[in-house]
């Protein structure tokens, strides 16, 4: 793994985790976005990516030396689509919660369970 890539992944993880832990719904969505991008880059790194490695487009099977593994980008593509859809759903749920309870602080939401409990 190239050092700059490792640093970027680390920063995305750190920033994502920090945002997820903030008591703020929008920050949670942003944190999730950062975290998922960090994970996607990690997947690319797992495929043996380096600046020197070429894109995996070949005409004949003998030319594969020095190219990166094509499977991880494939996986990342799927993960991006899923994360986009789920992120959009999460954002809309956050909006509905904000509209219902007039707060974007998850700690100020009413406690779980119904009144008969306790």
């Amino acid at each position, binding site marked *: 793994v190239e050092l700059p890539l490792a640093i970027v992944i680390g920063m995305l993880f750190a920033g994502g985790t920090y945002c*997820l832990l903030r008591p703020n*719904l929008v920050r*949670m969505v942003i944190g*999730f976005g950062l*975290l*998922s991008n960090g*994970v*996607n880059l*990690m*997947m690319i*790194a*797992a*495929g043996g990516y380096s600046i020197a490695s070429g894109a995996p487009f070949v005409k004949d099977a003998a030319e594969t030396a020095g190219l990166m593994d094509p*499977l*991880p980008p494939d*996986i990342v593509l*799927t*993960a991006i689509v*899923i*994360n986009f*859809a*789920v*992120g959009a*759903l*999460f954002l809309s*749920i*956050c909006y*509905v*919660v904000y509209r*219902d*309870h007039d707060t974007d602080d*998850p700690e100020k*939401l*009413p406690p*779980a*369970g*119904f*009144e*008969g*409990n*306790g």
Partner: protein
Amino acid sequence: MNQIIGFLLVPFLTALVQALLNGHPRAERAIGLVSTVALAVWSFVVLAQVDANGIQVSMMGGHAAPYGISLVADRLSCIMLCLSTSVGAVALAYSLSTVTPAQEKYFFHPLFQIALLGVNWSFLTGDLFNLFVAYEVMLIGSYGVMMVGASREQVRQTLMYVAVNLVGGTLFVAGLALVYATTGTLNMADLARYTAGLEGERAAVVTTASMVLMLVFALKSAVFPVFFWLPDSYPVVPAGVNGFFAGLMTKVGVYSLLRVFVMTFRQDGNEVVTQTLLILSGFTMILGVLGAVCQWDIRRILSWHVISQVGYMVMGVGLTANPALARMATAGTVFYIVHHIIVKSSLFLLGDLAEHVTGRRGLKQMGGTLVLAPIVAAMFFVSAVSLAGMPPFSGFLSKLLLVRAGLAGENWIIVAIAIATGFLTITSMMKIWSYAFWGSPQEAPGPRSIAGMVAPASVLVAATIVLGVWAEPMLRLADATAVDLIEPRAYIQAVLGEAASLPGVAP
């Protein structure tokens, strides 16, 4: 053999047709019920075929494994499919009596089919990344079902459920990246072949990478210390479907633990993972049941019980750390999963029936179900006693198998916890029994027809009795499944071809 893809295509197409038919609830109901029941019947046919003739594999898009995605129906997958489709059919039949027109208008039926699709898919897939995709499909369906109708409480709880599962999904991909970086494959059969006989530093790296996946599956199956999301989430799921959720959703996590850590990862040092699971299972069992004892709402009590019961199954997975016990413990876990899915779903349905009959929610306000609906009380009694582990029901045998495996391995502490948890389970069931079923009704509720709800629930109650008194076929099947998982020669050959080198032989 391409018939196994039907378990994905049928719910998917049903969901599409139902979505197009939105506004015609009768047609939606009929299509959903017919397709789910047909799928349930078909799953038993496929189970019989696989049991007799061996594993069926389907390569998606015609790409050969390990590069393409393979769907694999072995004994374990087929058992799980039988459970998911038949419990799905029962839960759907039950929910037809409770679902509101508003919920049907907001795509209750298609969303349920999507959740079923995701569950079936996670049982069939033979590829770890594909398992992630299946999880997400299942979760998106379950978010929808959980929020359908969008009351304030539902959305508020779904927010937490989504947040927890988003983190879980992200960790899943991170774990996959680590596994891919260390092994170069995500196909389960290929991984099993590669990791068998792996030793030293390389094995340690693979074990570390697989630990991330363990955390994800633990989160999904609500194992200590990541079970906090469950008791708040399941009570808001619409009645009927909550039986399906409680029975199947967490068991997808247990299934993944079994599939991945008993069958797939075979390197030297994998027992570190299973031993960790064994320790966590003790906490899960005891904390889950203690959580149940202090609740005052049937749904919340039952939700906490899901956690403590998951502890038993994870204990079975954990006991496989000892190779001498692996077969016994795996067979016990498989039997326990079958028992648990049936009984837990039936308890959720019957708990909801009791709320329905008394017209109230909250144990302190309820009472007199025994007078109002003796049949509901009798069925609840059978299920509750079976859950706690009394003979002659299935709960007794499944606990016996696991405790026997624990004793054979001289794991005294875990066995003591398992037995103590059984007693505490009875205590909390007594609480439901004495508050909700004994006592006199608060006021005479209006006459209601509950036949449409009793009939589906009775199927599950009958199943736990049959599984208890006529256990031989299931025991034999569980044992054969355990042998398959521990020595996955047939699995590897079915997926990678006859020429594939066998586990134990260095690749």
